[in-house]
């Protein structure tokens, strides 16, 4: 029973709630204006929140278009895109991880953007980092336009390297190993030169790409893990653990990577741009001057910097969309250097358009410059839907090898065998496409 005394309060609250509901409705359920075209845009995680600050300018320039942003958490995004496609409920455009392009293309969910790009004054392939642009290109057609980019570089502790007598950041594998050995003998048995989490595929795959491995062969029909390039890279990767330069730990066992980097548990770490912000935020103030970033070493001198992953998010238009022109206008808007710069200021996501890097915030920051140099030397991972499964299996088999369970040759044979099986369906579909007219 509600005591009578609280009744006025209850009714006042109800009235207040009603006002709130009305106000919310005025903001959210207002019809998008008479005759205004509504474009539905799915954006992921924090980007989905922040991009809304750029949109008023777009709507001012395009009075006929209203953009509705739906923010989707990264962890649910992939599944949600697939279910939306099955349920015929895809948005007009979306932000997706650029490694998802091959999968959505295989599903025939995406719109070929090549004709629009050919006429576009803003989106020009040569104003992008080549490796990253390539992630959206399949069979000569472009399905995704890079929005922001990410790649992996070397984060390192200047003080620990200096104490070990390493004066220059290594630029070749040989110099890198030499530097790690010096660091190891200077820090002792309980600390390490580098952290390479054993449950991540990026590090062994980057090394393989640097050694010249194509990972797959015959147009992604078979694995190419028995090729000498891959075995050479795996050999190096394993030797880092065998020689105790890297601890054999998975990311799950490194309870707090920032704390351990601060403690000097490891001196180098291969990771991406999201950690620029995290390191600034989480490392103690007295360490802020002693960490730095550098492009990755290359296998041979003269190749520096060695290639790294072409990661990031791309913008795609869905084939089922009825507002493709308006969606494309939004992509063009978000690709303007000024908008790319504004987006960097809001999120810290690195711009995909090279011209945006001339802005003061990016040009002056030495920690970010390493990424710029590295981004000119990136290559996409094989652009097939099965890649992620192959990548994880590569990490698992590499872990068995680095723990001494199997040899490098056995790892290569196992990988080829299993990957060939994963690609069975792909070979069947490719052959069917070739035989049927």
């Amino acid at each position: 029973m509600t005591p009578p005394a609280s009744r006025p309060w209850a009714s006042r609250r109800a009235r207040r709630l009603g006002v709130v509901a009305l106000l919310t409705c005025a903001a959210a359920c207002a019809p998008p204006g008479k005759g205004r075209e509504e474009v539905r845009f799915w954006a992921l995680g924090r980007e989905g929140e922040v991009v809304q600050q750029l949109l008023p300018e777009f709507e001012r320039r395009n009075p006929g278009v209203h953009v509705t942003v739906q923010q989707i958490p990264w962890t649910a995004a992939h599944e949600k895109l697939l279910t939306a496609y099955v349920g015929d409920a895809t948005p007009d455009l979306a932000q997706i991880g650029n490694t998802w392009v091959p999968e959505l293309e295989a599903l025939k969910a995406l719109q070929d953007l090549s004709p629009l790009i050919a006429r576009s004054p803003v989106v020009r392939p040569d104003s992008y980092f080549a490796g990253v642009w390539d992630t959206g290109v399949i069979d000569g057609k472009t399905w995704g336009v890079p929005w922001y980019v990410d790649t992996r570089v070397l984060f390192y502790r200047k003080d620990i390297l200096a104490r070990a007598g390493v004066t220059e950041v290594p630029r070749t594998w040989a110099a890198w190993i030499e530097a790690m050995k010096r660091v190891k003998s200077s820090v002792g048995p309980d600390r390490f030169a580098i952290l390479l989490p054993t449950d991540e595929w990026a590090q062994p795959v980057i090394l393989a790409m640097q050694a010249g491995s194509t990972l797959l062969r015959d147009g992604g029909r078979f694995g190419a893990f028995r090729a000498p390039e891959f075995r050479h890279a795996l050999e190096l990767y394993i030797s880092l653990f065998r020689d105790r330069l890297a601890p054999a730990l998975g990311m799950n066992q490194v309870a707090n990577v920032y704390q351990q980097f601060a403690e000097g548990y490891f001196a180098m770490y291969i990771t991406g741009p999201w950690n620029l912000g995290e390191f600034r935020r989480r490392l103690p103030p007295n360490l802020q001057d002693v960490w730095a970033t550098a492009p990755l070493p290359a296998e041979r001198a003269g190749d520096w910097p060695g290639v790294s992953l072409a990661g990031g998010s791309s913008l795609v238009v869905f084939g089922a969309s009825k507002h493709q022109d308006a969606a494309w206008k939004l992509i063009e808007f978000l690709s303007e250097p000024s908008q790319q710069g504004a987006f960097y200021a809001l999120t810290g996501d690195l711009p995909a358009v090279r011209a945006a890097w001339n802005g003061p915030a990016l040009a002056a920051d030495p920690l970010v410059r390493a990424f710029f140099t590295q981004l000119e030397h990136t290559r996409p991972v094989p652009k097939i839907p099965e890649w992620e499964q192959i990548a994880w299996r590569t990490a698992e088999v590499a872990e068995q090898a680095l723990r001494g369970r199997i040899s490098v040759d056995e790892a290569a044979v196992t990988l080829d065998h299993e990957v060939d099986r994963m690609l069975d369906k792909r070979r069947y579909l490719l052959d069917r496409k070739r035989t049927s007219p």
Partner: protein
Amino acid sequence: MRSEVRAGLLFIAPALALITVFFFLPVVAGMLLSLTDFDIYAIGSLDSVRFVGLGNYATLLSNPVFWKALGNTFTYVLLGGPLSVAISLGAAMLLNSKLVRFRGLFRTAYFAPVVTTLVAVAVVWRYLYHPRVGLLNQALGALGIGPVDWLGDPRWAIPAIIVMAAWKNFGYNMIIFMAGLQTIPESLYEAARIDGAGWWQQLWRITLPMLRPTTVFVVLMTMIGYFQIFAEPYVMTGGGGPLNATLTIVMLMYKEGFRWWNMGTSAAAAFVLFVIVFAATSLQLLLQRGREE
């Protein structure tokens, strides 16, 4: 048809319809799915689906990762099952003792892990198990025992997760055991004491026999629970590491189905697990019935 029969059918029709739509049909669909190579391409165009017969099962049986997961699952059941049941029975008997004060407090405290979010619990346990700064290793270090990499060493990862899972879940079975203990008439114990029976004899001759129906229920549910264990290793070791040492059948099924979209293989793994759980449950009920007769 006689009118009572018709009325009876009418009454059970809603329940029957629900079971058919939400249980039998999905099971049959799952079984059919396990005979195809339904995958990401099939979502795009259904005509890429091939009927592969028992091919998925053959692939599964020839996959060393599947056998690893199967072995791990049995390890969870055989190590974790008895441990969980023993702890919950022990805790229930302790709390049921007349000597215990603040019974409500302890009951709530022991039950609290059951209703705590698993992810939050996992964060704390990961710190306890941390190879360098973990409380457990510091305690062992004080005794002069070298550090153990609990979650990183393939030999220790399953026991470490089982201890955590048993701690997290024993409260639930404890409550069921306590309810069972309270149905045992006090007069039995009084008569036993007058006849000179000690604590052990009372346990063996009164408590355990009287608790048998409760125990059968608890053991069955615990066993099925461990056969289907997923969340605990998933949050403690990521995807079943190190070296797949903590991978279970359900986790393999999840990975195949919802990470790689190999629905056919995933459905096949689900069916293998179904058959195993069915067989184990039947065997246990049979043994139980045999003992009662």
